[in-house]
């Protein structure tokens, strides 16, 4: 195992080194225009400056504010509506295909409408993120609550659980893993759509900053920001999967 493990890590390391070497080789001699691909050293320099001076804070704050607001709206609405729908089998039959059908529409198409109504400020991004995140959350809430093992429900009822106890002690804990999946997908989708819509029409946020730098042909700084956003999203993914694991363990 250890030899294989070392060999596999070496391949990964080799790949990264090769990529960096190719980048350096093509840019240092001017084979590729620095406007297209800036020298690696320049990007590294810009990245260090960016992080050390904390220049990223205003844009990061805007994007995170949009993400958290959108996520809380979607999580609140999705969980409540999902709960209400899941209370009756008939309502599930009526609403579940309806919600799944709307989910099949690429919500990004609505963005021009949102810009028309809400302007190009954070509001249209929050609305977009919330719309995109809402559907996986509500569908997973319905699925989770609907497929709770009937034995649990019967057992709890026969032991005299009140409707409130039934929900808080049986239904929600049993449905939680599925609901958590919906919340995780919703958060990631909201993040992607917020960055995307900031790119399309915006005056603040990380997506906007990257586009602005690109349009000003300041490619080195743009690459530095792209690397920064990639690191942020890797952190976000790690945090989400950690929360996921903790959430599952907490209830197991």
């Amino acid at each position: 195992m250890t030899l294989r493990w070392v060999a596999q890590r070496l391949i990964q390391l080799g790949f990264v080194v090769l990529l960096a070497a190719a980048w350096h080789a093509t840019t240092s001699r001017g084979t590729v225009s620095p406007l297209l691909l800036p020298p690696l050293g320049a990007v590294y320099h810009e990245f260090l400056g960016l992080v050390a001076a904390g220049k990223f804070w205003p844009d990061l704050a805007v994007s995170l504010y949009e993400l958290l607001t959108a996520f809380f709206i979607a999580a609140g609405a999705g969980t409540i509506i999902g709960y209400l729908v899941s209370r009756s089998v008939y309502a599930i039959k009526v609403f579940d295909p309806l919600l799944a059908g709307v989910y099949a529409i690429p919500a990004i198409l609505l963005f021009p409408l949102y810009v028309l109504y809400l302007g190009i400020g954070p509001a249209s991004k929050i609305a977009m993120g919330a719309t995109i995140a809402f559907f996986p959350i509500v569908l997973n809430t319905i699925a989770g609550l609907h497929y709770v093992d009937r034995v649990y429900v019967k057992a709890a009822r026969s032991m005299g659980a009140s409707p409130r106890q039934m929900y808080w002690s049986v239904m929600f804990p049993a449905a939680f893993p599925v609901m958590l999946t919906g919340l995780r997908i919703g958060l990631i989708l909201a993040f992607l759509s917020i960055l995307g819509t900031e790119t399309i029409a915006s005056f603040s946020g990380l997506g906007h900053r990257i586009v602005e730098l690109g349009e000003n042909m300041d490619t080195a700084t743009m690459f530095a920001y792209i690397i920064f956003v990639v690191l942020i999203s890797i952190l976000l993914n790690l945090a989400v999967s950690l929360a996921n694991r903790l959430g599952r363990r907490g209830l197991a």
Partner: protein
Amino acid sequence: MMTSLSPRLVRLGIILALLMTWEVYAREFGDPLFISPPSQVLAAVIHLAHNWEVVAAVGLTCWEVIIAFTLSVLAGLVLGLIVGVSRFVRGATYPMVLLLYAVPLATILPLFVVVFGIGPASKIAFGIAHGVLPVIMTVVAGVQNVEPVLITSARSMGASPRQVLTSVIFPHMIPSFFTGLRLAMTAVLFGVLLAELYVSQAGVGHFTTEFTQTFQPQNLFALVAVLAAIAVALNELCRGAESRFARWHT
């Protein structure tokens, strides 16, 4: 009794009620610069169907989606097989695929435009960037799910590596491969439409911008509705294929 009604009928009723509310609200209270009732949107769809430029733009966007989807699937299949076929290679390369999947592609959209221009090429490339990773991941998952005993027994009966691939691995990959197709379609649609909305000369993004900036909500709604219908049809096609092939060997 309420429960004796078919859910389908109730669903239709809800949709009609929502459309009616929208119609009444838009007619009575809405600002005609911002909202149009569904009846006018429907009229605008018919009107736009006679506008040659808009039809061409919708057609162009459909082409971008179809080309990006086809290339994503082909590239994803090949790359997925390379990554997934040996356990050693998978261990070395799969974490890199997962890492790439975590990259928010929207942030590198300007790079695509710099490299591929503002024409259809950048939309196709951006669509492929979105679509290829889900295919790779589901192909790898599919290869992983082939029971090792099947491969060992095929090999012990003298099957060549190519026969193992075509007669054992491919058939067992089919269910997850179709799941990959569905995910790829959703992702390609997102990528192409996002790139269209970002910058576009002749595609639908050009017209959504124009209709928004010149306050023609009926045309904007109509175009969005048509695109949504096309997107749903493409998604449904993939979902239908998935549910048809998902349980072929049971």
